[in-house]
């Protein structure tokens, strides 16, 4: 298994996604035996609400097939950056797929791009960045937190993508992105508490011909300062946006129809309007619902928005850095977003 390329049969050491429901998925590493709390090697059994899964039994199964649990079944899926984002072990706040989608798009990434990222955090975005730029591009990702760097590096190795990524421990605000990446980047992404401090370093890291920049910040004050820094450094086409993805629950719903007599009709012809009413003649009585049995039901299919949803994730600020030779030139105002 590799996050970079699909394969069909599950082998020892693979990471698989165990799908129980759309809101209940788990990333599992296929190992026959694992250490228990007492540090003894025991058979690897994964517990779910539908019973236990002997992880060993996954070996030889094809991705996308049904597997038995002791009290039910589940699907095993090939991992993708999107599924990983939903199942990864959180070490920090992470960025989710709707924002990730815009980040990839706004960074104008394509195979072969060189992209810088800081901080690495839990590697949620990193996996998506790697998929975009492989096989000939490269991701340089930086975090000043030693353990996060270590864990991310191990994950990339585990997921067979380490050839596309370099993880470094570094405080990018204090010391920049380092001499290795001077003038190499097509795109820079920041998810930092003080992104504006890293903006001048981003310029240094970017290619002569310029490139794209995106920063993710939860607070508008961060955005304000980042925009100031970007303008100062010669970035143009600044755009700040926020995106939410609303999931609709598809349901058939029924509403009862209140029978109302049609008062425009002569008295003797009065029928409950729109009401089956079971032969009830008077509108009023039908409205009380007392007799005549079931009322007419109107059934319809609808997409119900969630009663509550995250109303804010973060602001995304995107900008273009023109080629070096064109930077001193004041180009005319740029359009607002589409």
């Amino acid at each position, binding site marked *: 298994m590799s996050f970079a390329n*699909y394969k069909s049969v599950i082998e020892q050491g693979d990471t698989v996604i165990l*799908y129980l429901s*759309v809101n209940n998925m788990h990333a599992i590493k296929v190992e026959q035996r694992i250490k228990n709390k007492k540090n003894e090697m025991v058979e690897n059994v994964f517990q779910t609400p539908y019973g236990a899964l*002997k992880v060993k*039994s996954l070996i030889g*199964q094809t991705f*996308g*097939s*049904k597997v*038995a649990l002791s009290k039910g079944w589940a699907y*095993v899926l090939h991992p*993708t*950056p*999107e599924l990983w984002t939903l199942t990864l072990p959180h070490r920090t706040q992470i960025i989710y797929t*709707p924002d990730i*989608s*815009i980040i*990839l798009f706004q960074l*104008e990434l*394509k*195979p072969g791009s060189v992209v810088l990222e800081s901080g690495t955090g839990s590697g949620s975005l990193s996996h*998506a960045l790697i*998929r*975009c730029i*492989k*096989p*000939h591009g490269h991701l340089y990702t930086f975090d000043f937190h030693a353990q996060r760097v270590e864990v991310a590096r191990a994950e990339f190795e585990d997921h067979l993508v380490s050839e596309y990524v370099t993880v470094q421990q570094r405080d990018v605000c204090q010391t920049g992105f380092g001499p290795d990446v001077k003038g190499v980047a097509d795109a820079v992404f920041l998810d930092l508490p003080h992104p504006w401090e890293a903006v001048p370093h981003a310029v240094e890291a970017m290619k002569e*011909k310029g490139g794209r920049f995106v920063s993710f910040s939860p607070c*508008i004050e961060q955005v304000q300062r980042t*925009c*100031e820094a970007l*303008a100062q450094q010669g*970035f*143009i086409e*600044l*755009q*700040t*946006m*926020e*995106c*939410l*993805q*609303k*999931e*609709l629950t*598809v349901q*058939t719903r029924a509403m009862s129809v209140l029978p109302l007599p049609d008062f425009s009709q002569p008295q003797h012809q009065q029928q409950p309007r729109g009401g089956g009413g079971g032969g009830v003649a008077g509108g009023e009585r039908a409205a009380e619902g007392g007799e005549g049995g079931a009322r007419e039901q109107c059934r319809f299919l609808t*997409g119900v928005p969630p009663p509550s949803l995250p109303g804010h994730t973060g602001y995304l*600020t995107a900008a273009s850095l023109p*080629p070096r030779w*064109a930077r001193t*030139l*004041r180009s*005319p*105002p*740029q*359009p*607002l*977003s*589409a």
Partner: protein
Amino acid sequence: MSEGSDEVVRVGEYIVLQRQSYTKLHKVSDHGTVMLGKDQIDIKSIIGKPLWTTYKMEPKKGSKRDFILAECDSAESLAEQLIKAVSSGVDNRNIFDDGNSQQLSTEEIISMRQEGMSGQDIVGQLVENSKTFRDKTEYSQEKYLKKKEKKYFEYVTIRKPTIRLIAQILYRQDSTKIMGLRMDTLSQISTAAGVQSQGTYLLYESGCQGLVAAALVNSLDEGGCLVHTHAGNIPQKQAILAMNFSEAQKSRLISVNIHSLLRKLHQLKDSIVNTVSDKDNQSSTCNGDHVMSQNSSESEQVVEVEMKLEKSVNISTESKNNNEEKVVNINENEDVQNDTNDRKRKHSDVEDSGPKKPRWELETERAALILKSQLADGLIVVAKEHPRNIFLALLEWVNPSRPFTVFCLCREPLMDLYVYLKSRNDVIALRLTESWLRTHQILPNRTHPDILMSGSGGYLLSGIVVRDTAVETVD
């Protein structure tokens, strides 16, 4: 593809012309003029010059609407110009100029510009913040505004088309012509389909000017392939053309008629001849022409009959499709139409050329063989038609454990599809989503969400294909 400073304007390629908030796609020809609004601009001078160059529009002698472009190497700062202009009132009898009549600082104006505020808005801001503006006569106010506006509308920058810019241009020109496919939704299509550079993807696209196909091709590398199905004879491809794809990139795109493809696929499925070729096909990639040559002999027999059939179908629908294409193209860039016509001519040339198989047929075979041998790694349907039967027809050509996504401007067709798919056992993780996007003005002390936002970016129904098999029993 070209990189760095060798990125210059070439005849035959597309560029983005940017004048203020107005951007336009244009195919460069050697006798180039281009209309920007009502102005006709001679762009001969930009050929061979680096992209990102900014030009000043200079009126041709004796004409108000004809311009030439002069490269500006030492343009004054916009802010300086503005300040200068604003502080030079026409009638200054009542104006006490303490040097502070313009309350906006240079920095603030620069940041307005960087923010992407249009020249018009900047002028508006300047007026609002100019103590002296109100003291001017009405006449001089008007004159002042015209002068300002003109001043800040006279530069043109030449940019390289990217998916982001093309999506932005098409959306702003007329979002109904791309079915309201907003940037955020377009970006979510790529992630929902899990597009990676070496995969094989199956797309149906209509009513989007090739925008989705272009975005997908842009994400592919060696070994990657996009089978782009469409309903007519010729796909819409404004966006594909605008990307100036290299030959290598173009070879990863196979545009085929969906009927022809499905027919061919079902023949292949039924034919015994082809079971033999299964193993060979395993290694076939989209890039190799060898796929065609290697397999064409095997499928020849099957194809032969079909070819005749297909031909008559195609001819009979030709005229109708021609009209359709034309209607679309008239409202677009003239250059596209030329290009499609070119293609059409070639297309029919091939068709007339005797026993040789027409290009569309070779492409259909190639697509069918690729899908038959390796199935798709993702399915994307972006249709102006009801998506249900299109989606279902293509679904069986997708590998298990691979994602799919269906875009629709309205939610109802997707709800219907959702309900139906729930009853099947070969798709899971169904999600119907709508994206919400809000943009913001970020300025010192004047930060707020933009006044106008788009009401809907359309809906996506996404999910994952699985094997429809019985559970393996526990050992």
